[in-house]
């Protein structure tokens, strides 16, 4: 009999894990609460640093995991722990018995309206990184006028590295995402001045620094070291952003046609619900707590429960995919040793 592995969350981590499990001859079941697979990446336009279309990646993952059992629009009603297995009851009435659960519940973007001083939901010219990707994909967003775009600003670290937003951790991918989006916007609006307001630029990944240099040299994007503290609106309906240029040591003010807030990654609230059902530990940053943060990132403290992707913290797409594979290997070796 083929061993069943339940994957909670049909984002890229879940899909990649399912496809690897299929290759190893297991029978993965994907439970996804949305009506589509691919999670947050499916809403994204292009991925750094190669500008790969997100759709390509998601399509490829869906194709390679199509033989798994997939439940869309399905949530978990409850999970019972038995002797050495779990009984999962789904919202569509189906129950599944399994010894192995892989949590790939991912993240959610910080709700930018919580940072009221940035005026998201108040001023018409303030959007988030998620809104911008949506616009790249669909071209539909009344807040972004296609014509006279003279100045655009990016605010890094919205809802991350911010104790007032109840998240003191770095969201890791926003710096490079801001640079990517700035380049994309510059391509759409070549005459616009683009400003990135950052606290620290954390460009740790492969090719990230090249991307930064390209943004400076080829696209003339202005990087200002200072966190935006106030956003107001003038009578022409433009937003005025106030920050300190900490390198110049002077307050700085700029009028913008569009302000993009780089909402950080925070843990999905549904993850907390699920963690409650299985008595999983939640870390101080709000994400799920791995067995340890060096050797066993993909293991939980509970037997048979594994993690992959952004449910344990902010991650890039390649990191998430790598974790999904690593988690599958962990599950595989546990299945083999159990027999």
């Amino acid at each position, binding site marked *: 009999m083929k061993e069943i592995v339940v994957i909670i969350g049909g984002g890229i981590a879940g899909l990649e894990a399912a496809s690897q499990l299929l290759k190893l001859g297991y029978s993965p079941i994907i439970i996804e609460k949305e009506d589509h697979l691919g999670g947050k990446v499916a809403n994204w336009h292009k991925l750094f640093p190669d500008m790969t279309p997100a759709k390509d990646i998601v399509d490829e993952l869906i194709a390679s995991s199509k033989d798994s059992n997939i439940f869309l629009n399905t949530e978990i009603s409850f999970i019972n722990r038995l002797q050495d297995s779990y009984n999962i009851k789904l919202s569509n009435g189906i129950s599944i018995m399994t010894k192995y659960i892989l949590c790939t519940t991912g993240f959610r973007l910080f709700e930018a309206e*919580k940072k*009221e*001083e940035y*005026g998201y939901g*108040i*001023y018409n010219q303030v959007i988030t990184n998620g809104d911008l990707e949506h616009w790249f994909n669909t071209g539909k967003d009344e807040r972004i006028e296609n014509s006279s775009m003279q100045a655009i600003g990016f605010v890094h670290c919205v809802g991350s590295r911010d*104790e*007032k*937003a*109840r998240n003191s951790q770095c969201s890791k991918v926003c710096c490079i995402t801001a640079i990517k989006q700035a380049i994309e916007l510059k391509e759409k609006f070549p005459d616009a001045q683009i400003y990135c307001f950052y606290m620290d630029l954390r460009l740790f990944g492969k090719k990230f620094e090249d991307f930064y240099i390209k943004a400076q040299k080829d696209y003339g994007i202005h990087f200002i070291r200072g966190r935006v503290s*106030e*956003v*107001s*609106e003038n*009578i022409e309906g433009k937003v005025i952003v106030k920050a300190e240029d900490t390198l110049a040591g002077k307050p700085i003010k700029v009028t913008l046609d569009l302000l993009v807030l780089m909402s950080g990654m925070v843990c999905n609230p549904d993850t907390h619900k699920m963690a409650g059902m299985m008595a999983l530990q939640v870390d101080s940053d709000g994400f799920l707590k791995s067995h340890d943060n060096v050797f066993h990132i993909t293991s939980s403290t509970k037997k048979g429960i594994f993690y992959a992707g952004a449910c344990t913290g902010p991650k890039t797409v390649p990191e998430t995919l790598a974790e999904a594979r690593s988690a599958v290997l962990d599950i595989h070796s546990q299945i083999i040793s159990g027999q």
Partner: protein
Amino acid sequence: MREIYLSGYSNFIIPFMIGMIFVLSWCIIGAIRVIMELSAEDRKKFFLSLLNPKIMAKNIKDWFCDCLFHVKLWKRNKLLGYMHSSIAFGWFMIIVIGHIEVFLYTPERIHQVWYPIFFRYFVAVTENTMKGSFFFFLMDFFLLVILSGIILAITKRIRSRLFGMRRTTRPSLTDTIGLYALWSIFPLRLLAEGFTADISGGSFLTKSLNDVLHFFFSDQMNMLPTWWAYSMALCVFMCVLPFSRYMHIPAEILLIPMRNAGIPIRHSRKGISRLQVYSCPSCGVCIDACPMSAVKANTRDTTVYLNRQIKRYNERRIEEISDKCLLCGKCTAVCPVGVQGDRLRIAQRSIRKYNISQDYSNIDTNSLKNQLNNFVTTENDFVSDIHNQKVLYFAGCMTSLTPTIMKSMTSLLKKAGVNYGIMDKDGGICCGRPMLMAGRIDQAMELVAKNTEIIKESGADILLLSCPICYKIFKEKYALEGIEILHHTEYIDRLIKEGRLKVRKSEKSYVYHDPCELGRGCGIYDQPRNVVSSAGELVEAEKNGKESICCGGSLGSLTLSFDKRKALTENALKNLTIASPDEVITACPLCRSTFNRYSQTPVRDIAELIDSNTEIN
């Protein structure tokens, strides 16, 4: 009545007299000291108030209601109220009736202070005095009332929750001695009178006790030790009184007329501050009231402990307690004697020595005045208004961080066709209240002067404020003759009443949070409720109005760090959302952002609510 002892004296009165003389002289010297410590102006005000029949009538009413009947405690909890008033009023009546008896039966002894207290020892009942059995009955009745109060007091020590108190004060050593002395006075009196009831007469209580006692003791001489014990208990109580919480009994008598005369706290320790500190009965009502008590470790930083530390001159703790406080004023609002915990703390903060002082003389107000004028002419926001009043909107520092309030407010002003200008669109000068709360009064007044200059020159008729912190200082410290100062809750209420804003009522339910500075600080409770009810169903929080709980974001606290405030905010939210409202409505930018951080329920300002429920006329 017939006297038994010609001298009208017995040795056992000596302890009582020692105590009496000590406590009386202590109190008289103390009262003179407090009065002398007042500033000349305040002292004059105080004496003049005593001649004012209206204030005097209030004094008499307060003496009875506060000192004897403890009306405020009755309102808090019936059992607690009964316990206090039974002891206080019962004791008072026993003293009064005692004097009446002396006056009626042995008028020549009235000048002997101890005579009314130990009356039953010195006299014997005769045939014709049995008509006075009415007084005997009253004496026994009030003794019973007191004894019931004492029984409740003992119960309260064990189970304070029965009396509506979650936490009580930890008594100091002298408090404990005083407490036991107080508890023993009346049982001992009952015992002493019980022994003599067959001679001196008595009623249902003492007479029946006498019968019981005679059953056990045949010897009349047993009565002397009980009278000694009664006198000793009185002596102990009076001797520890100045050093214990019972000092509040005499201190409150003086505090009431001073309070009614409106004497403010001007000095950290002297005058009215000293009087308030000694008037603190250590009842601990402020402990449960304090928003910081949501965290148990903070209960030692409540007003009752501040008073205790001031009495002990423990400067380190005084500083700690006064700097930590949120200055929400709730302890002042609930205090049964009227200790002003918030003002007392600001006074403690004001004596700090600073080596570096702020100085605003370099600030040129012209640039800020120009900002206003430019704004008015270029944006032409002074549109016509039926009253033709010019409204100057001062959003305040905090409002610039919650731009939604400012946006909603200007939108409302436009909808109502108000002739308005914004004073601090591009930055302004702080109102001075935060500086004042830090105890730096001179600096605060400099800021007040700068803003006054700008406002006076604007030619405005109404100064409109969105921030209750600003509102309080504008009301109290600014001299803006001819300019009406309004908080936006008041102004919106007025605009709705005048029909200039047409509010659509929604199906939703809203709870209104009273911001400290607006509610307790300025007494604005009704207008915001009128406004909220016009937009939907108004529900109340568990504790509301003058007992509303601070959001925890207050600028009042100097030392409370950000992470320590979370528990306070969550506690306040729990109180607010008790009726599961659809939204929390507040009227302070600081409360709004503080609640918004932790709330599951949406939080909005009253201006946002009305703006979203109003159409353009």
